[in-house]
């Protein structure tokens, strides 16, 4: 069979995401956020989710609704504070959501580590701060480093600019952000693409995410938001 990862609908693409799942969602602010997949997740009624997304409640309208609907038990992110939205703030201050705050670069590197089979790494970031409390510290070349573990997910929902049926992806400008990393770190990677192009039309030299990381491709809106 010719490899074809295109799925007819966002609904079908997220149908096996169950209660309690850990879900990575790409995006830094609105760029790169898979709005259509998030909406499908919301419509599916699934709950008790752990969401890994850099901005959580501050990420834009679609992801905010996931919080407002109380579908999220725990968030792993670097910056949940929303400008112009109090959804996350209220849940957090009421103790209704768990927050694991991770420095942004450590978040990115932990997701990458999961993707590339690295079981842990030492970073200088966070040393001496409350975000490193309880973590192993080791000195290399006179400098203390913090030990960090990989961050995996059951599902990754990723927004791409263009995709082909093999799952090869390209992104657009700052919409790239966490997409390529998350695509590699989840058991199942679902992609929403602004456009689906025939296999062979993406220049192999400029493919950012090779299809090996991608399980399903859905046609999203032309604009990500």
């Amino acid at each position, binding site marked *: 069979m010719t490899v074809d990862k295109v799925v007819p609908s966002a609904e079908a693409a997220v149908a096996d995401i169950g209660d309690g799942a850990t879900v990575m969602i790409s995006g*830094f602010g609105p*760029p790169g956020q898979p709005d259509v997949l998030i909406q499908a997740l919301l419509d599916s009624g699934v709950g008790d989710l752990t969401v890994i997304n850099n901005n959580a409640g501050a990420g834009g309208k679609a992801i905010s609704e996931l919080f407002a609907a109380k579908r999220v038990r725990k968030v792993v992110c*670097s910056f949940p504070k929303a400008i112009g939205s109090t959804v996350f703030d209220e849940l957090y*201050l009421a103790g209704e959501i768990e927050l694991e705050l991770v*420095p942004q670069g450590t*978040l*990115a*590197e932990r997701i990458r580590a999961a993707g590339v089979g690295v079981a842990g790494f030492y970073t200088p970031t966070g040393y*001496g701060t409350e975000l490193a409390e309880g973590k192993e510290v080791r000195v290399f070349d006179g400098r203390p480093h913090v030990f960090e573990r990989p961050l995996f997910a059951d599902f990754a929902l990723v927004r791409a600019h263009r995709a082909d049926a093999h799952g090869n992806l390209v992104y657009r400008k700052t919409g790239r*952000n966490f997409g390529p990393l998350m695509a590699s770190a989840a058991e199942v990677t679902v992609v929403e693409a602004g456009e689906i192009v025939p296999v062979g039309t993406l220049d192999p030299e400029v493919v950012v995410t090779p299809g090996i990381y991608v399980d399903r491709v859905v046609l999203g809106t032309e604009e990500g938001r």
Partner: protein
Amino acid sequence: MSWSRHEIAARAARDIPDGAYVNLGIGMPTLVADQVPAGKQFILHTENGMLGMGRAAAEDEIDPDLINAGKIYVTEEPGAAYFDHAESFGMIRGGHLSYCVIGAYQVSQDGDLANWRTTSSTVIPGVGGAMDLAAGTRHVFVAMDLFTRSGECKLVRSCSYPLTATRCVERVYTDHGVFEPAQKGFRVVELADGVAIEELRERSGLDLVDAVAA
């Protein structure tokens, strides 16, 4: 006469060499981009995946996929490049960014930085890329007012707010002058016209070493 926000930014920009790769934090540090001295070129990094960032986008230049770390629409300079977050923070952590200019709540005389959260329990904590920038950038500059609105000095013997990183700040640019953490106090590199070091010593209670070039 204390310096204006633009003057603080301009003073920091003067100390950044031509051709430097620079990350500018939200707020006052952003103004550095408008104060690049004639004859110099800075290449701006934004941690959400871009080198060669340009100025803020005008209304008709807005591209919904092109924002900076403060989620402001920006433009693209010739020679720009986009990349993912692992690459972007690899650049930072790996010491490739030569300068960052960031804001602060407090800077200690050891060079410790506190700029990501206060001790208020009603404020949502959010760290973003602050810890990475502070720990990774080769030269960490702080741009801030010297005193809080309630009059407390933001240069301190030891930070009372949660730390962003230890021993990282090289210089602090403020409305009253330019300071350097010096272990037992701060070196005063420059003072705004009319600011007396003695008065700052009294207000801050700090050991300030006069290092203003004659």
